[in-house]
């Protein structure tokens, strides 16, 4: 593979990891808010128990993504940053409020209610904003005046593809997090919480799928070039659909532990589905970062830096993967953590 394609693949892997981890993290914040008043279920405390140790790690994935973009494609970072400065700053603003208030709501119980609401609502707004930048990058919504570029906000806000992307982002977030939390509740042996999240996942699955299909078809009038490229990726999209179908059906598979469903299989297959589809979407986007001006070739760093970074990621991952495994065992598997009664 050419260096530039290795780089864009690594970037996609990081994007994928953050999309999954972020969806689950933001979604768990939303569920913690949604069930905060319910005394009949442990749904809120299960969500919190997942969030407490994991949000920092999720945030590092975001930083990883940003740094990888800047170091592999310095040119793209500059253009995207200039163009999207306002939405990105809003994301940063909300992210800060969310993290701070979430940590504080664990610390002082007195204001928990308000703090949980704020962190839950921002947990919906952040992914919405992030996703709404996608349609802006496919062209059609950018105007160039002299050497400056502007986003045509009016046109963006009145186009259907903007709203289908938005709906897709939000439903994915809630779908993935409900699935993971059902698996988490399963590990914690909490049967009724498992059913709460399983039901949410069952409702959200088809909604997510329809938004995904809607997002693709509303692209036609705005970015026909991308739609054409997507048609060439039909194999990946089909496989992705298949993964969805099997993963979704796993919620009804017979189980020894719970009355019905294999949540672990469902989580893994839906993540695979998401990976296949986003890889296909990304490939269809190539070679443009920002249609039609910025391609991955223009934006690429020099080869020497590329290879140094590659070595750096190799060494870093080799050191960190064992720690990740230990972390996973401590918080996702250890019965003593999962089954305690209070969130701490």
């Amino acid at each position, binding site marked *: 593979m050419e260096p530039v394609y290795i780089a864009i693949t690594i970037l996609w892997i990081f994007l994928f990891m953050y999309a999954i981890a972020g969806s689950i993290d933001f979604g768990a914040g939303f569920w913690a808010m949604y069930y905060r008043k319910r005394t009949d279920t442990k749904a809120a405390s299960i969500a919190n128990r997942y969030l*407490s*140790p*994991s949000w*920092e*790690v999720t*945030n*590092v994935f*975001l*930083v*990883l993504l*940003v*740094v*990888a973009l*800047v*170091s592999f*494609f*310095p*040119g793209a*970072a*500059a*253009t995207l*940053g*200039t*163009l999207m*400065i*306002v939405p*990105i*700053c809003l994301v*940063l*603003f909300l*992210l*800060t409020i*969310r*993290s*701070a208030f979430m*940590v*504080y709501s664990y*610390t*002082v119980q*007195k204001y928990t209610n308000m703090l949980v609401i704020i962190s839950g609502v921002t947990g919906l707004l952040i992914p919405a904003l992030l996703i709404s930048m996608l349609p802006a990058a496919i062209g059609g919504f950018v105007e160039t005046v002299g*050497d*400056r570029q502007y986003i045509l906000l009016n046109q963006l806000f009145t186009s259907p593809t903007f709203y289908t992307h938005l709906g897709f982002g939000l439903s994915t977030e809630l779908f993935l997090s409900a699935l993971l939390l059902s698996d988490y509740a399963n590990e914690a042996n909490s049967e009724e919480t498992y059913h709460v999240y399983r039901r949410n996942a069952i409702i959200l699955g088809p909604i997510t799928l329809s938004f995904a299909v809607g997002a693709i078809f509303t692209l036609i009038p705005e970015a026909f070039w991308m739609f054409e490229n997507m048609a060439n990726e039909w194999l990946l999209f089909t496989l992705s659909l298949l993964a969805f179908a099997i993963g979704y059906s796993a919620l009804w598979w017979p189980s020894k532990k719970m009355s019905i469903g294999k949540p672990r299989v469902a989580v893994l297959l839906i993540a695979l589905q998401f990976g296949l589809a986003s890889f296909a979407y990304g490939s269809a986007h190539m070679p443009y970062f920002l249609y039609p001006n910025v391609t991955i070739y223009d934006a690429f*760093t*020099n080869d*020497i*830096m590329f290879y*140094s*970074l590659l070595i*750096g990621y190799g060494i*870093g991952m080799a*050191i*960190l993967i064992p*720690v*990740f495994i230990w*972390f996973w065992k*401590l*918080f996702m598997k250890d019965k*003593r*953590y999962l089954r305690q009664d209070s969130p*701490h």
Partner: protein
Amino acid sequence: MDNVLLARTIFGSSIAFHIIFATLGVGITLMILLAEIMRIIRKDDDYGTLAKRWTKGVAILLGVAIPSGTIVAVMLSLLWPGFMEIVGQVIALPFQIEIFAFFLEALFLSIYVYAADRLSPTMRIISVFFVALGATASAVLITDAHAWMNTPRGFDVVDGQITNVQPLAAVFNPSFFVTSFHVVGSAYMTGAFVLAAVAAYKLFRGGLSVREITYHKKGLSLSLAVALAMSVYTANSGHDTAILLHEHIPVKLAAAEGLFETQSNAPLAIMGTPDPEAGRVVGGIEIPGMLSWLATGSTDGVVRGLYDYPQEEWPPLFVHTLFNVMVGIGSVLLLLAGVYWLYWFKNRKSEKPFPKWLLAGIVVSGPLAMVGIETGWIFSCTGRQPWTIYGFQLTSEAATNSGNLGMLFILFVSLYVVLLVITALVMHFYFNRNPVSKDLHSIT
């Protein structure tokens, strides 16, 4: 305000906000590690209680440190796209490696905080060691990028294109070691003084049981031992940094000292205002020959002055004051920590409480150290002006040309103010609700 000035203001205030939490994250995690070690050496659970309460404090601070760090990291690309285009090609490595330091810190911190009861004592120390290592490494790595901006190496510019990139030469640029030693030393020093200030405040207010007094005295002594050692180290490494400026960026040293004429036997000017018309510092105290001696090791050494440079390459002259404040604070705090240990040594046999004036001094030392960090950094970044990459890229070439910056400035500054207030309130509520007497009883 024009765009560049706005971008500078937004970035400067954001990073000045981040550095408060980041420095404490570096300094206090070292103290937690030391407390855990003391607990084993002395077999004294009070140190475990110290570690536990400091950890709670750090966990609260990180709720702001991490998102504010994310803000500055992203803002670097948003506000300085020209700068980041060069960074991505030449000095991307420290930013990349820093990510792994963040992972190390975040993973082990979660393990240390949320799995503490499931870890053996050795595993606890190992976990907190990696937290401290991660925090310190992230400080060293980001300082590397800053050092490279002062003494850029590892690339050539031919017709406006970057060529001949040597990533390692960029990483190991001449000021890397000296600067990062000073930064890490000052962060440890600040963390220690801030914790000492908390303990001193409790003792100063009084009304404590004997048990609580012994507990706070242990905290005070552990903090001030580190504070003393790190004050000596910081002053010493600060001196090395000044020599480095003399060798590599004389114009910054000249602005720091308000020196206009290139001369041997250059005087050290303390306070006062540099006056370009008069060609000297007015209203300050001058110690003849001292600057030459500090920078070159001999009063005959020649130190370059601002007149050697065209005026548009001068940094703003108020950096003289910032520099004086940093050095002043360094000297005062060194003295204070010294006095504490003298007093401690003289009275080690008696149970006499510490005098109020000494405690009051220590209470002030925490905030003062933080002021030292802020003035030091603003001096260093503003003293580099008009350059972003010294000798290669002007700040005006680095800045974004997008609009809307005024609105963003208001948005972020109000966010920082709100968060400062809320963080203080949360700390207050938490530690009021859970007084140390509760923790002490639960152990004995």
